[in-house]
């Protein structure tokens, strides 16, 4: 177990000193950060839509339509983050 941890640390250290590893860490960190915003946004959109649907069930169709469009717009941010991730990867 200790040898596995030591070898992992060695691999990471080698990757960081070579510079390629830093790029990979930056790309992964960037994609992760870019996905946090859409995650929060989707949570807000869906939460508000559920609230609207339960308060006014007769307007659920409208709420679901706008919710779907809101989710899709929010996802665009994650897709942009994904493209940046692909660009940054070594």
């Amino acid at each position: 177990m200790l040898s596995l941890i030591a070898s992992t640390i060695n691999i990471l250290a080698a990757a960081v000193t070579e510079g390629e590893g830093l790029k990979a860490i930056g790309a992964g960190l960037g994609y992760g950060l870019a996905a946090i915003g859409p995650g929060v946004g989707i949570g807000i959109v869906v939460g508000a839509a559920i609230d609207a649907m339960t308060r006014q069930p007769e307007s659920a169709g409208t709420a679901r339509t706008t919710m779907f469009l809101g989710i899709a717009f929010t996802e665009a941010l994650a897709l942009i983050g994904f493209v940046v991730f692909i660009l940054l990867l070594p």
Partner: protein
Amino acid sequence: MSSERSAFEGAPEREVASDLFRRGVMISPILLLLCLIFWGVNGLACGAIALGIVLANFLAGAWVIEWAVRISPQLLLGAVLGGFVIRMGVITGVVLPIRNSTWFNIAPFAAVLIFLHLGLLIWEMRYVSATLSYPGLKPRIKRQKKKKSIG
């Protein structure tokens, strides 16, 4: 109970997604032609992959919402967030293995992915907002009125 049941009947998101898919297919020849002109056959392939990702993403997103709402509105939030994570994972899984290929070009891929996604949404939003503002102008309602008047 009946109002609650009627509230979650139908699938408006499927209609929106099928509209987005239809429009995406309609403009795909132009996009692919542009990719072919600017980046060659490799660009065409990358553009086609991005096109497939965008259209499949819309359909998968609508399917997840439709499936979750049918079961329970309480499931919706978890299903949508889980679906988002899974879809991003699938997109990453599709692109990562091919990104180092000699034929893969990020420029047409990124251009089609971002501009098609946003463009289709803006295009669809115009129709949806018009339908919400002027429900009387919705084509389906017109057809139903015509049928009633004939009947």
